[in-house]
């Protein structure tokens, strides 16, 4: 599935496709990702008309509905700038599924292919295009990284998060058991098969906590919604103070490398 986007030269402008989850549930992650990019001297453009990549409907088996929503995003990126997405799963949808989604519609297919070629997951963009090496200004801490299945298997960018964290001199990155295993989110899977999804997220949270890390970071807010939601629920059930804080890797990187300034 891996089909790396050809390495672009350092661009002056990029589009930011925030994803509906970041826009509505994790605005901090979006702000921090944008700031991080801007601090690299890049102008970040946020097309106001963006909504959602269409993946929820696509993966649930409602292809026509996914197509209608995806068609709306196709026209938002007229210039030939990279499109940076702070989520491996939404980036994967746009990069790998848009071209097939519009296979029967030549005009849209051409747009989808042009878009597909310049879609980047955020950590991939930071590493592969910007060669970003964050300078650590924080005190020593241990974190654990969760990489989404789409980032890992669809986008093939499971190493970029580790690479970025590895640049931080004072940060120890703990390795969890079964690191490559799904957290159990899977969009509507989490509500259609709540027993299995619940068991998966329970195991994931246990593995993350067993590392002793102070926090979990991830480049996918869908996974974070699931992982942090379960960790907080478990803490409440057991009458405990919050035991597994977490955030988008963009927020962590920004703070460690000097904050907003």
């Amino acid at each position, binding site marked *: 599935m891996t089909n790396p986007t050809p390495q672009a030269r350092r661009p002056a402008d990029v589009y930011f496709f925030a994803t509906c989850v970041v826009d*509505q549930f994790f*605005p901090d992650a979006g702000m921090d990702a944008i700031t991080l990019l801007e601090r690299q001297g890049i102008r970040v453009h946020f097309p106001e008309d963006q909504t959602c990549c269409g993946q929820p409907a696509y993966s649930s088996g*409602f292809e026509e509905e996914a197509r209608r*929503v995806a068609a*709306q995003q196709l026209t938002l990126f007229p210039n030939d700038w990279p499109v940076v997405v702070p989520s491996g799963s939404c980036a994967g949808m746009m990069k790998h599924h848009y071209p097939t989604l519009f296979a029967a519609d030549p005009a849209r297919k051409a747009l989808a292919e042009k878009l597909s070629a310049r879609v980047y997951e955020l950590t991939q963009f930071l590493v592969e295009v910007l060669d970003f090496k964050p300078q650590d200004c924080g005190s020593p801490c241990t974190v654990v990284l969760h990489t989404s*299945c789409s980032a890992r298997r669809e986008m093939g960018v499971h190493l970029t998060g580790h690479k970025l964290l590895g640049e931080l001199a004072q940060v120890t990155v703990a390795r969890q058991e079964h690191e490559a295993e799904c957290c159990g989110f899977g969009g509507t*899977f989490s509500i259609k098969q709540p027993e299995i999804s619940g068991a*998966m997220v329970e195991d994931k949270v246990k593995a993350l906590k067993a590392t002793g890390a102070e926090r979990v970071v991830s480049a996918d807010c869908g996974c974070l919604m699931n992982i942090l939601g379960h960790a907080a629920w478990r803490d409440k059930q057991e009458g405990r103070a919050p035991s597994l804080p977490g955030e988008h890797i963009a927020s962590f990187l920004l703070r460690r490398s000097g904050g907003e300034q």
Partner: protein
Amino acid sequence: MSEHTLHFKPAEGFRARSKAVVDSPFLRQSFRGAMDFLMSKRAAQFPDPEELESLRSLGEAIRQYNLAKLPDLLLQLESRLTVNGIKVHWAETPDEANAIILGIVEGHGATRMVKGKSMVSEEIELNHAAEAAGIEALESDMGEYIVQLANEKPSHIIMPAIHKTKEEIARLFHEKVPGVDYTDNVDALIQIGRNVLRRKFLEAEIGLSGVNFAVAETGTLCLVENEGNGRMCTTAPAIHIAITGIEKIVEKLEHVPPLLSLLTRSATGQNISTYFNMISSPRKPGEKDGPEEVHLVLLDNGRSQAYADEQLRKTLQCIRCGACMNHCPVYTRIGGHAYGTTYPGPIGKIISPHMLGLDATAGLTTASSLCGACGEVCPVKIPIPELLIRLRNEAFSAPQAKPAMRGQGAGHSPLISAIWRGWALVYRSPALYRAASWLGSRFGWLLPAHQGAWTSVREPLRPAPQRLRDRLKERNKA
């Protein structure tokens, strides 16, 4: 087909069966341990990712090449086998396959059959049919033997008794095998099984086996196994009956070694299996052993439906290694029985709808987070997540006049479809999305604390009080 198969819909009760396993810490631990073991065995076989990738591409190419020529290859296989003296039978349904097999058995006045491991014989529920006809059908693969003693079905296509602990097997042998004392010594247990089976190999008139690869150009049936029971089944009894799905054909002998290597390394992490049998004819004049008659039953059972569709055809690339289940986080949580289908796990979810109809299996298509671990390890690169999405489309769309699949539209719900149409209406319109997400940010705190299945193990979801777009606007004004 037995009554059981006709009326049992695996998707019904799937959640209850999964929950029963998920709620048992013992079973959770036991499946996790077994799958971890199998994953590490496979990983050790493929230390070089580049070699693995090129082997998988080769495996995929071989399977696709042969599937493209399948109709011709089936005829070529039939004529080669006939020349070699092997009788070929065609069965469209499990009922027909059982009738053919039992017809051969009864035609010889036989009453005893020993079976090598065959998932296709599980698929047609041959043991039930044989029992109903008064024929003893004894499983001789150790795992299958255990499952049969326990009156259960296999929970894994390669390791049928993977759900059982050695203590459970010890109790089972003590209770079911006459004159056996309780022992949980694994070697002793294997010896007990061997002693029972050795006698049966000598007594049985019929040996039944599956087929891993059927070679069209030579008329050869290839059988992969580890215990030697497959060789016994195919040589000791006077009659050998092999059964296979129509997709297991390769044109050339040279197609076998790469597939065999991928199969054993992916399945059990073995470089090669202990036994590899190539059966090309019955006993020839002057030969001292081997069966006097060899039959091959070629079963369709929904495979030609998958074959007819370019995308669904990829389902038939499968060489039944089971790596997809070993690496599946869902299978690891619930084991094989919860699925209720002969073939569990990811491959089961994509092939069972063709065998049983989507009306019986639509709900199983949702039992995947689409994490992609199955597709990543598949030795013949079946795009399992992509096929699951396709099956969801087939299951949940409104019934069509000319469906690609039996049971298409069985999972259709006008309400759910309307919800998705409404969702698309909002998300395709920037204005409606802006309005809806603004309302969410303002009034999200009004959302209930109980949000259905989501909050069964998670805190409720609440939109942030300010959307990213609002924050950006504010910042850019400042």
